[in-house]
């Protein structure tokens, strides 16, 4: 579909007014959808509140069965979660790629099924803009730290929401933020910018470099990525929540398992409220109204920062790691020109303080003007680039005179598990930092063994190493592929070519396998197959 629309744009020199290209930030706590506005040639976030100016939609899904089954998504679900604590799902993004099932009513749902409700709601708001609209392409953002399984789950969620696979493309969130930064600010060649995207569930850090810039062309290159898919504002809420439980216990003797579900939901919302308020003020008074003897307690910003000190330290380590593990070598803090704060959680004062302590210069730290929207906007820019919209001077966003080449890279090492018998090891096939255009690597295996089974079967375990220092046990399984029924040949006389590639559109790993026979002894058989490894179910390929 992308190619078809791209061709249409090239031929007609414009994007058809009924075609929508979208960028979706499917966030842990909030989701945003933007579209490419062909009148003013730039992405625009869609107001989901129909005039009330609210754009980010809470990523909250609620099931009710009072007068027939009903799904509530967004603001209303969030505001009423205290009424339906068992039937309200929040932060579903954290579970993407897992086997976990969520019980709602009398049915169980996978995380991608729940995410699909959020996507459907966002898409409905898009249709309202133009009921005749046709989706030409959708880019959905994923955290840097999403593994292959989580990315597949995201694609699946999009499909369940009614999008065909050919429409879907994924982009890592910090790259989307980098693109938005480029289009909103003046860049100069050689500049290095760190995007620190700190959201409700995830922390994504990208360092990109303006490697080339002329009046017609700009080349942006990602030179490091880092972060953690389970390191966000939600964790801070949890830590504050623990403190609130302690306060209640100290004051009333009530342990948290003695509190009702509604009380717990209220405390969760209170914890978030405290975090948000202490971003602007130095102390808050917290009411504990549901206790038998209601009381108030003052919490200061300093106390909150003490409670979350381990989290702050861990965040600092993630930044330092990203700098240390640049694709082309370590990056010194003084080499970074600008640090851009994105994401709703980046407004907490300690974030800036922590970054100033690393970069030693408060004047390098910039806050994004709309951190809640920039990922979605960047995803839409990426969709526009893919569509070729930003190659036509007439269609380029106002003020942007250059074509943009944005080099997208593989965020983690992809490889095989090699079993030596006495130990297992990770063999890298595609390294972190490899541009997607080059993210294809072939390995030739030679089958050896004593038994017929060993000579006609091959088991491949494809893994993703999230951190350079991770040992084999910590690497995440992308999938197992079992090839059976290979031609029976003597030991060491069968060569198999296995190719792994990472698809640019989705970041998902695919593979091919081919029998090469053995030079001058055995002709290759006709066996050739493609596979898409799956963590949940082993892929079995019969070579016969």
């Amino acid at each position: 579909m992308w190619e078809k629309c791209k061709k249409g744009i090239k031929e007609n020199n414009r994007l058809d007014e009924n075609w929508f290209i979208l960028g979706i930030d499917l966030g842990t706590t909030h989701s945003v959808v933007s579209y490419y506005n062909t009148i003013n040639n730039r992405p625009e976030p869609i107001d989901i509140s129909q005039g009330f100016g609210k754009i980010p939609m809470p990523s909250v899904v609620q099931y009710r069965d009072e007068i027939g089954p009903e799904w509530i998504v967004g603001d209303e679900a969030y505001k009423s979660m205290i009424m339906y604590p068992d039937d309200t799902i929040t932060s579903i993004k954290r579970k993407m790629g897992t086997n976990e099932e969520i019980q709602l009513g009398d049915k169980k749902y996978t995380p991608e099924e729940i995410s699909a409700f959020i996507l459907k709601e966002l898409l409905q708001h898009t249709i309202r803009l133009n009921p005749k609209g046709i989706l030409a392409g959708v880019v959905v953002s994923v955290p840097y730290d999403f593994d292959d399984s989580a990315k597949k789950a995201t694609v699946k969620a999009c499909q369940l929401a009614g999008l065909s696979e050919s429409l879907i493309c994924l982009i890592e969130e910090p790259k989307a933020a980098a693109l938005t930064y480029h289009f909103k600010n003046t860049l100069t060649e050689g500049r290095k910018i760190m995007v620190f995207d700190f959201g409700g569930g995830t922390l994504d850090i990208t360092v990109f470099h303006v490697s080339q810039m002329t009046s017609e062309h700009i080349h942006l290159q990602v030179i490091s990525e880092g972060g953690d898919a389970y390191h966000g504002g939600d964790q801070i809420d949890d830590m504050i929540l623990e403190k609130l439980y302690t306060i209640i216990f100290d004051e009333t003797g009530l342990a948290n398992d003695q509190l009702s579900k509604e009380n717990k939901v209220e405390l969760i919302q209170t914890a978030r409220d405290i975090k948000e308020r202490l971003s602007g003020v130095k102390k808050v008074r917290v009411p504990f109204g549901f206790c038998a003897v209601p009381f108030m307690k003052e919490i200061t910003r300093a106390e909150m920062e003490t409670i979350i000190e381990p989290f702050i330290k861990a965040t600092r380590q993630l930044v330092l790691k990203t700098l240390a593990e640049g694709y082309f070598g370590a990056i010194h803090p003084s080499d970074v020109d600008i640090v851009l704060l994105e994401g709703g959680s980046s407004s907490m004062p300690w974030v800036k303080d922590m970054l100033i302590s690393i970069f030693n210069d408060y004047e390098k730290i910039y806050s994004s003007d709309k951190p809640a929207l920039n990922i979605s906007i960047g995803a839409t820019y990426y969709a526009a680039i893919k569509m070729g919209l930003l190659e036509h001077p007439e269609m380029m966003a106002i003020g942007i005179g250059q074509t943009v080449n944005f080099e997208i890279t593989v965020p983690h090492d992809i490889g095989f598990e090699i079993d030596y018998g006495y130990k297992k090891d990770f063999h890298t096939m595609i390294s972190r930092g490899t541009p997607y255009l080059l993210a294809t690597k072939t390995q030739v295996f030679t089958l050896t063994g004593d038994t017929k089974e060993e000579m006609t079967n091959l088991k491949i375990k494809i893994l993703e190493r999230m951190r350079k220092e991770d040992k084999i046990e910590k690497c995440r399984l992308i999938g197992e592929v079992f090839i059976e029924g290979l031609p029976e040949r003597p030991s060491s006389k069968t060569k198999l070519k296995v190719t792994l590639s990472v698809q640019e559109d989705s970041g998902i790993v695919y593979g091919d396998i081919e029998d090469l026979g053995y030079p001058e002894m055995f002709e290759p058989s006709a066996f050739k197959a493609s596979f898409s490894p799956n963590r949940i179910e082993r892929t079995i390929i019969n070579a016969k």
Partner: protein
Amino acid sequence: MMNLSEANYIVGIDVTENEATISYIDQKSLKPIIYDRSGGYGQVSIPTVMQYVIEEKAWLIGEHANMNRNVEGTLIVDHLLEILLNKEEVEIGGEKICPERLLFIYIENILESFKQLNPHATISSLSLALPDRYYHDIINEVENGLKAFENIKLNVVMSSQAVFEWLQYIKQPFKGRTLIFDYSYNNFATSRLETKDDTIHLDLISSKPEIAISDVEKVFIEELNLQYQHHLKLQHLSKEELLNIKQMLIEQEQWIFQKYAKKQSAKVYYSFAYPPFQKVLNYKRMDELIMPFRIKLEKFIDQFAQFDQVILIGKGCKLQWPVDIISEKMNVLALNPYEVVSNGCCLIAAHHIIKQDEIKFNIQQKEYGIMVEVNEKVIFSPLNNHANHFIIDFEDESEASLDIMRKDKENNFKIEQTISLNNALALHNKIRINLKLTKVDEDTTIKIEYLPM
């Protein structure tokens, strides 16, 4: 367009009764951008609330001040425009702070926040837009307050001027006679614009506070109070419960009115209650509550049928139903009501770099007032568009009359209207009254409110 340096910002601020909206132009943007201080979460306007934190000797403004109400050791200053209007001073730690200084602190806080976007940020030009009906009453105070900003080019304009600036920018100048309906929290005010001989004549012609958002909210709050009381079988509600319900409406009014716009019932969640519960506010009941306001609004706008087009501004436009009513009866220009004034104001601030045709504005000012005796001298005391409190001495007479005077630009006086007064509430032959001025096109209506002495 001339270039701005990277860290330079041009700012326009639309200050209304309850909130301020900010737009800015920077090096990259070629047109005003709304400054969303909530970071994209949609709270594009900030409350005109200030809070002094005693221990820290620091001021908070806007949403942070609002959230922090009722916290010990703080002082809240609400409704900045009213404070300027009433020339109220606020006492902080034994020191009296004049309204001009309060305004300066509020605006300074806003401008400082641009350093979040760019640590090197400087503001080269600033424009403030004031609601038309406030402009003449507080322009001096506002200009005095802003004088303290050094090295910043300053402008203070009426919101209608800002609207026109924006129309010109988007190449949609109005033709013929145009109305601006400013549907704010406390009022529904009307300004008239007309082009004659390359000059825009601007005239504040009427205001209708009874259909303001605050009145609609009051009615809904009462309804929710009754619902809550009935559900819990309470005789009366505590102060805390009343506050909670008010806060709940503010949080949920968005989808309540969205549902109303779709002719659907809305579920209201009393999350603060123990245990929490929900009630349905059905469409029919919502319609009953809103109907009196709809009727008043329809009647009010019927008199303006002869105007060529209407521009809507103000927070009230979020309610949708007023927009629908007005759109049915009049030609409404499609503008974003929450952004048009701040954007236009920003363009005024950017005149030195974004060249637009110079607009001549003639602000019609018919000044109404009464003749009062001060220190044995009779002087003209103008009436403003808000409360006007006077003490009238009947001097042993049982009846009295009061001449409402009109003063024109040449300082000529003319009796506009004579009002009869009665002494039913007189104490020692004196009564206290509030004269509420309502202008409807060429006619002036004065409503008298008798107050206890």
